[in-house]
C-alpha cells in the first residue's frame, strides 16, 4: 500500500519527532518543525505518537492513495481537497483507493502536515525517519519528495478512524505577526544594552531565507560591545570561540539580519548568540512565512518553563480526548 506523489509541492519531506541523541557528533534533531500540528495529526488518524508524517511548505503536494486509508491535514490554514471535494482540516478523513489529495492557495500559516494511518514507512536512520536534506540522510532517500515517488504506508496504526475532530477552540490561529518567547542569554553580553532592547522592541520581518535550517529576519541593526577578541574566536566582533548552538538560538552575524536556528540547523559554530526561543514556540515560527512579522517577547527561565508546561498540558489533554 503506497502513496504516489503526483506533484511534490515546493519542499515536502518525511518527518517524525526527530533524531535525538547525536548532537555531539553534529546531527541536528530534524523532525517536524510544528510539533503540535504533527502530534495532533497522528492522534487524529489513530497512530502511535512517533509515526512519520509529511511536512509541506507554502505549496501542498498532490498525492494519490493506492488503497483505502484514513488521513488528517493539520498545521497551516490551506484548502485541502480529496478528488476535488474540500475536506475539513484538523479532522480525520477516510480516503479510498485511487483518491487524490490536493491543496489550494495557502490562507494563513506556512506548513501543512499530512498524517496517514500507519505512518509513512521509510527506514529508520539513526533512530528516526526524519529527513535531513543538508547531508542527504533519513526520510525518503534523504531528500524532499519528487513527482513519481512511491511512499510505503506503515501497517501499525493503533486505531484508524475517520471523523475524529480537534475541538475548534484548540485550532491554532496563525496571526501575520507571531509572538515567540525568548530567553535572553548565552552571549547576549556581546551586544550593547541599546541593541538588546532594540531586538525585543522590533517587529522583525521574515526574509525569503527562511527554511528548516533557520529563519533569517530583517528590521534593525544591532551593535556589538567593542572588545579585544579572546584567543580562538577570530577578529570579527560577532565571533566567539566556537561552541555548541542550542536549537532555537538566535545569532546576528555582522549585526544585521538575525537568524533563529531551527531543527535542521548547524549544531555549533563561532557566532555570538543572544538567546534562545522557547522550544514549544518553534511551532509558531514554523507557521510564519516570508513577509510575515515576528516579535520576540523576553521571558526568564521560569517563564520559559511555564510556557512549555502549558503547551504540553494542552497537547496531553487533546490526545486523551481524541483517543
Amino acid at each position: 500500500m503506497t502513496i504516489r506523489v503526483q506533484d511534490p509541492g515546493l519542499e515536502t519531506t518525511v518527518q517524525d519527532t526527530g533524531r535525538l541523541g547525536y548532537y555531539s557528533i553534529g546531527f541536528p534533531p530534524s523532525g517536524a518543525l510544528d510539533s503540535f500540528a504533527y502530534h495532533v495529526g497522528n492522534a487524529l488518524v489513530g497512530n502511535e505518537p512517533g509515526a512519520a508524517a509529511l511536512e509541506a511548505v507554502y505549496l501542498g503536494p498532490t498525492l494519490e492513495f493506492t488503497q483505502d486509508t484514513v488521513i488528517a491535514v493539520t498545521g497551516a490554514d490551506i484548502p485541502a481537497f480529496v478528488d476535488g471535494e474540500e475536506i475539513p482540516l484538523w479532522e480525520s478523513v477516510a480516503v479510498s483507493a485511487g483518491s487524490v489529495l490536493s491543496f489550494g492557495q495557502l490562507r494563513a500559516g506556512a506548513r501543512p502536515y499530512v498524517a496517514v494511518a500507519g505512518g509513512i514507512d521509510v527506514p529508520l536512520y539513526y533512530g528516526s525517519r526524519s529527513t535531513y536534506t543538508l547531508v542527504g540522510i533519513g526520510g525518503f532517500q534523504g531528500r524532499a519528495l519528487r513527482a513519481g515517488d512511491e511512499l510505503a504506508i506503515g501497517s501499525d496504526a493503533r486505531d484508524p478512524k475517520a471523523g475524529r475532530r480537534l475541538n475548534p477552540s484548540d485550532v491554532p490561529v496563525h496571526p501575520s505577526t507571531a509572538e515567540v518567547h525568548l530567553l535572553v542569554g548565552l552571549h547576549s553580553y556581546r551586544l550593547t544594552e541599546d541593541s538588546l532592547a532594540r531586538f525585543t522592541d522590533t517587529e522583525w520581518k521574515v526574509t525569503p531565507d527562511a527554511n528548516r535550517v533557520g529563519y533569517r529576519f530583517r528590521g534593525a541593526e544591532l551593535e556589538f560591545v567593542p572588545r579585544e577578541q579572546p584567543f580562538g574566536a577570530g577578529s570579527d566582533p560577532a565571533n566567539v570561540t566556537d561552541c555548541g548552538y542550542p536549537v532555537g538560538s538566535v545569532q546576528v552575524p555582522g549585526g544585521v539580519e538575525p537568524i533563529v536556528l531551527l531543527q535542521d540547523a548547524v549544531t555549533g559554530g563561532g557566532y555570538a548568540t543572544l538567546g534562545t526561543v522557547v522550544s514549544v514556540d518553534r511551532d509558531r515560527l514554523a507557521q510564519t512565512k516570508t513577509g510575515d512579522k515576528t516579535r520576540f517577547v523576553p521571558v526568564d527561565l521560569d517563564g520559559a518553563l511555564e510556557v512549555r508546561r502549558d503547551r504540553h498540558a494542552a497537547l496531553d489533554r487533546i490526545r486523551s480526548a481524541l483517543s
Partner: protein
Amino acid sequence: MGSHKITSRTPGVFYHRPSPDADPYVTTGASVAEGDTVGLVEVMKTFHEVKADAAGTVSAFLVENEDEVTIGQDLVELET
C-alpha cells in the same frame, strides 16, 4: 476581451528572467498560452516557476524584478 491577473502561489522574491544574463521569460505585448512560465519566485533558495493559468497577451507587469511578493499577490496582467 477581459483581463486576468496571474498571482503568486508562494511568498518570495520575483524574477523576470531565468538567470541574470538571460532574456526575460515574457515581455509586455507577448502572447502566452496556459502553462507558459512567466517568471520565477525564489524562496528558501528554491526557484518556483510562475505559470500562466490562462492564455492571453501580457499587458503589464504588476511587480518589479526582485520585488518581494506575498501569496496571492498579482504579478502579471493578461488581456484575454
